[in-house]
């Protein structure tokens, strides 16, 4: 595998006396899918927020292709290729499904902020948004307001928005949380296809251990904000620290943990 696409060095955030993410140093390579696991409150989502810029790091550094992006805001990081699908669905509720995705397509273009060019004139962008919707089986809902979608479809749209952004680093935060059993494979297939392309860096926070085992090249375990284990799935799931701290709670966690 190649040089790290994304790296965090001693990444730390403190909320008052509480250290939510504590000196996490690790690297993610292109073509690799890393699952980040840990019990609720372990700092997984906070770690994601630090990487994509929703939260400022107290100390430490984030490097994208060797470039220090710690000082950049979320918009600049997105432009540099960090894509994020949120655990708590974050859509544009009063815009249509298609408009939601289309905004992501448009965000990639230099002409994103064009004052004069009509929204409806960009056929290619419209087609690309539709392709992203096809990938998650949402084309039939393209004209629906995002707010009116059922929960499972909202989760799919959340993923479609990130797909349309075509980032280099994909950050899935419990993409299947709250989805019905028959909807889950759509998302998992999509992640598998993405991984098969081999040119993207994929980070996945997931509670369901079967999903993690089937998709991940590598598992990183966070416990109380500290990176506690890091390795290939077989080794990590077999390690004592994980069994005690995380898998010991797995019945509750995999049954439906992470509804937000």
């Amino acid at each position, binding site marked *: 595998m190649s040089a790290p696409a994304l790296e965090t060095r001693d990444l730390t955030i403190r909320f008052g006396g509480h250290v939510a993410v504590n000196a996490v140093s690790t690297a993610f390579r292109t073509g690799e899918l890393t699952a980040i696991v840990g019990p609720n409150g372990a700092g997984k989502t906070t770690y994601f927020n630090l990487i*994509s*810029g*929703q939260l400022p790091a107290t100390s430490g550094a984030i490097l994208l292709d060797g470039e220090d992006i710690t000082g950049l*805001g*979320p*918009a*600049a990081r*997105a*432009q540099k290729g960090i894509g*994020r699908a*949120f655990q708590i669905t*974050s*859509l*544009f*509720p*009063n*815009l249509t499904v298609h*408009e939601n995705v*289309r*905004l*992501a397509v*448009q*965000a*990639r273009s230099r*002409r*994103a*902020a*064009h*004052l*004069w*060019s*009509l*929204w*409806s*004139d*960009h056929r290619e962008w419209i087609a690309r948004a539709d392709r992203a919707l096809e990938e998650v089986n949402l084309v039939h809902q393209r004209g629906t*307001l995002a707010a009116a979608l059922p929960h499972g479809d909202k989760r799919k749209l959340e993923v479609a*928005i990130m797909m349309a*952004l075509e980032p280099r680093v994909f950050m899935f935060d419990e993409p299947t949380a709250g989805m019905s059993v028959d909807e889950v494979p759509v998302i998992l297939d999509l992640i598998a296809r993405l991984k098969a392309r081999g040119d993207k860096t994929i980070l996945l926070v997931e509670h369901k251990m079967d999903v993690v085992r089937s998709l991940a090249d590598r598992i990183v375990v966070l416990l109380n904000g500290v990176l506690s284990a890091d390795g290939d799935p077989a080794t990590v799931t077999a390690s004592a620290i994980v069994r005690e701290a995380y898998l010991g709670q797995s019945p509750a966690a995999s049954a439906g943990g992470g509804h937000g």
Partner: protein
Amino acid sequence: MIRALLSDDPPKSRLLAALLVLILAGLAAAPFVFPGAAALNTAAKICIFIVLVASYDILLGYTGIVSFAHTMFFGIGGYGVGLSLYFLGPGWPVVALGIVVALVIGVVLALAVGLVSLRVKAIFFAMITLAVASAFMILTTQLSEFTGGEDGRTFRVPELLRPTTRLFEEPFLGTAITGRVLAYYLVFLSAVALFLLALRLVNSCFGRVLQAIRENEMRAEALGYRVVYFRTMASCLSAALAVMAGAMSALWLRYTGPETTLSFAIMLDVLLMVVIGGTGTLYGAVIGATLFILAQNYLQKLMAMAAAATEGIPLLPRLLHPDRWLLLLGVLFVLSIYFFPTGIAGKLAGRGRGPAA
């Protein structure tokens, strides 16, 4: 053709479209259909406020920014044209100069306020705009040597627009084509052009980003849109349109003063028009401005008629006395909010885009 003019955003329902065509036709034919100076004045005021309300809706309805400084930009437009004509004498180049100067001042001021305060929370921005607008109004009334103070300035408009001008010897369709009629059509056509421009802006790629920011600022940022930049741009564009509305107002009234352009009463009227018409849809501005100004101007007459008709019935005539028109307007406002929480245009379009303020 029509689709292109409307920036591919035609009215969402037939009823709304019919209402808009009716308003457009009424305004276009106003000098011939509704005789009298008062009627023409009402029609011109509607045209001016359609532009002002539409420009405010770009901020409030599309971007989700609450600003109380909108009449300041209206005033800058009014004073820009008014004072230019007052000091430099009537002439079209002077009008153009006044507009350009006002646009520059307006946009620079919007940019300054935006850069200083659009990073902070919405409520602080609203407070800052309130402070800036108050300061501007006080400054304008204090600089009475220059601005005419509380009295404002009366000035002469270019010859073509004066009441004494006659374009033709004979009346046309029973109406003498005076400079006033020409001035009205200047205001009307400017309003149509500026409204279509605003419609184009909100339906551009840029405009959709504004809506995205209104809907979910954090998500827009996570897609790579710099929210502060877009908010500031929206604020500047909206200010420029308000300046144009102010310029139209000055040319029509041949007068500029704090009461007609800067007062908070106008700011409140604009807010009411936006809410009644419906935020987040520019067609709402047309409906809101038209209904509100018609009510303002004709409710009293209507009530006098109603009071006369109900004479003999206890209490009712007293309630319907013309002096109670503000009470009735208030009741109508409450009712319209109750039945049309997304505004009249929002209700008719059936697409519940609520205010995001």
